[in-house]
């Protein structure tokens, strides 16, 4: 039997190596998932992503229909088009999931995030931080002589940009809610 020669290196090809040799571009999609607001539903969704190796860029969840007992999960994820389709199919077949919307392909949508940023500083830096906050329409929700807490809403890019500007001016902490998104129009 040892006369049998298996191609060198074939054992390196794991049977489970399903990687597409022509790996495509990675896309970012925003999904809105309407679920029953029942115990464990968030764990199910998160478990699906971690168990199957999908990415979560951001995830928000809250009950949106008290009477109907429904919650809306907004998840921003990345992957090849094939992976994104899998994610939607996998979400769609979960028992407590009622609807899965891919806002990225279903048409224009608005995506907003709320962020709180603590910026500490004195003198010019403090004045500059306040001036930039005005340009970005961030509100001051707390202030001491040496710090501000800014509140701002916007798309994730806007918040990224504001945070980048605040960093040299004394950004200490940042808390972000993750994206909530709705399709435009009726």
């Amino acid at each position, binding site marked *: *039997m*040892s*006369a*049998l*020669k*298996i*191609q060198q290196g*074939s*054992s*390196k*090809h*794991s*049977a*489970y*190596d*399903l990687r*597409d*040799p022509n790996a495509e571009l990675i896309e970012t999609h925003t999904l809105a998932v309407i679920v029953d607001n029942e*115990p*464990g539903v968030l*764990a*199910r969704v998160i*478990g699906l992503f971690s*168990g199957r190796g999908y990415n979560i860029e951001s995830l928000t969840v809250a009950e949106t229909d008290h009477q109907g007992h429904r919650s809306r999960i907004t998840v921003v994820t990345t992957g090849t088009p*094939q992976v994104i*389709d*899998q994610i939607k*199919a*996998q979400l*769609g*077949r*979960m*028992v*407590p999931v*009622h609807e899965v919307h891919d806002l990225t392909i279903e048409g224009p949508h608005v995506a907003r995030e709320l962020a709180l940023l603590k910026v500490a500083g004195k003198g010019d830096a403090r004045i500059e931080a306040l001036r930039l906050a005005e340009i970005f329409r961030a509100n001051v929700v707390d202030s001491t002589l040496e710090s501000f807490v800014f509140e701002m809403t916007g798309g994730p890019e806007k918040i990224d940009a504001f945070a980048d500007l605040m960093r040299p001016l004394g950004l200490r902490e940042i808390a972000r809610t993750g994206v909530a998104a709705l399709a435009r129009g009726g």
Partner: protein
Amino acid sequence: MSEQMTGARMVIEALKDQGVEVVFGYPGGAVLPIYDELFQQNHIRHILVRHEQGATHAAEGYARATGKPGVVLVTSGPGATNAVTGITDALMDSIPLVVISGQVPTFMVGTDAFQEADTVGITRPCTKHNWLVKDTEKLAETLHQAFHVATSGRPGPVLVDVPKDVQFATGTYMSPQKAKTSHYAPRVKGDIEAITALVELIEQAERPVLYTGGGVINSGPGASLLLRELADATGFPVTSTLMGLGAYPASGKNWIGMLGMHGTYEANLTMHGCDLLINIGARFDDRITGRIADFSPGSKRAHIDIDPSSINKVIRTDVPIIGDVGHVLEDLLKIWKARGRKVNRAGVAQWWQQIDEWRAVKCLTYKPSKDTIKPQYALERLEALTRDHPDRYITTEVGQHQMWAAQFLGFDSPNRWMTSGGLGTMGYGLPASIGVQVAHPEALVINVAGEASWLMNMQEMGTAVQFRLPVKQFILNNERLGMVRQWQELLHGERYSQSWSEALPDFVKLAEAFGCKGIKCDDPANLDDAIREMLDYPGPVIFDCLVEKHENCFPMIPSGNAHNQMILGEAETQGVIGASGAVLV
């Protein structure tokens, strides 16, 4: 019916209303109220296993043999965790199971109470869905929903965790008709436009193949009949995965054998060379695709599957059809007939010539021996002596013997073959054979086993003896973890690390110790008589069939290779593959 009763009683009522006849289980503190109710009724039979894993596999065997969900009852903590392997097995193989577990009382959940485990947390990824019931008022409805989810769409295991206080408390029983199950309703009818697109491809194809899988079995016996009609009317060749064996009869004229890693030469080359690949209820598992980039390079692919997530998961499909196999095949046949039953007869005839050439390789040939029993020979004899039995069921363990059983035993109808495909769980076969025998007490149920796998759940022999289940344990004993040893021989320089079965028990004495019959055979000349003795014995038998120790299972596509890169064993390869011998490139 709005009767008041305890939660424990509700469990029994719900099972009765769901038509459950048998429960496989094991008692413990957290399910005592339910066991008390079981004791006081005569509708539901309880099969006491010896280990909760055994209960889950027995329920799987029962489910596969009947088309009904298998029901399991276990206690909290270790009872539930012991069931996890079988639950995962059922998830991978799409087997409907309803597992009911006891839990510590609600007011003690989270306190590390005695025998507390986060059962819904542990089983969340290995069930289709699961529930922790905190209120007796919701128990009956939840149980009905559990049956609905387990059996609708793509079947699978579900679990209902019932704290002990919920079992004791009184609530209102709800009948199955009143339970809210409407929102989980997977689609069964396929899209007519997509089906028509497939019919058009069927009319033109020159080199078609029907690649069928477990979904045909899941869809019910009607789907198998429709598959036969389609294959026979079109003349298309049929191959099947390990999970779909029997959907198309092995004696049927279009049958080309199982495909995949240990599938036939003709089936794999047909998949590789086809121009139209019609996947009917199979999931492009890596054991059948081999290297994705080289999978069936020149074909259009259609895929009929009830689970949208099976489509385009691994292999991109040109014509996806989401729906139940039975429903879709019915519509497909209707449309194809209405359009004049067209197929490219000349093309398909030529295709069959090619397939027959591949078939002439006789890829399952092995070197016979007069001195030792070859495992393939043992199965050929088992087949010859049982094939005509009117009611034969085969289960297997996992390993080489499982693949040889798939290659050498023929199945002419669905639900006759139970094997652990997706998870590949050693220890599945013995308890599964028990479940099958419980469902069909008069049938011939044989577990084709390897000695190592068999030892994993051998305690269930006690169950077989207690319940007078005449299961036949046909152990192909090579004193090796044969499949592991084969991979080590072929891929790890013959370094046989830990793949010996040392210190094996004397299986004949073991049988006696269990109170059943033991038979040992190591001589090919005596094999037929020994098998007959096994078949004639009215009770359970452990058959220790000592076979060639270092036999390899061929054909084999080393993982990560393409379908046309197959290793053949002793098959007649001259003129078909290059002089370099056994490796096809």
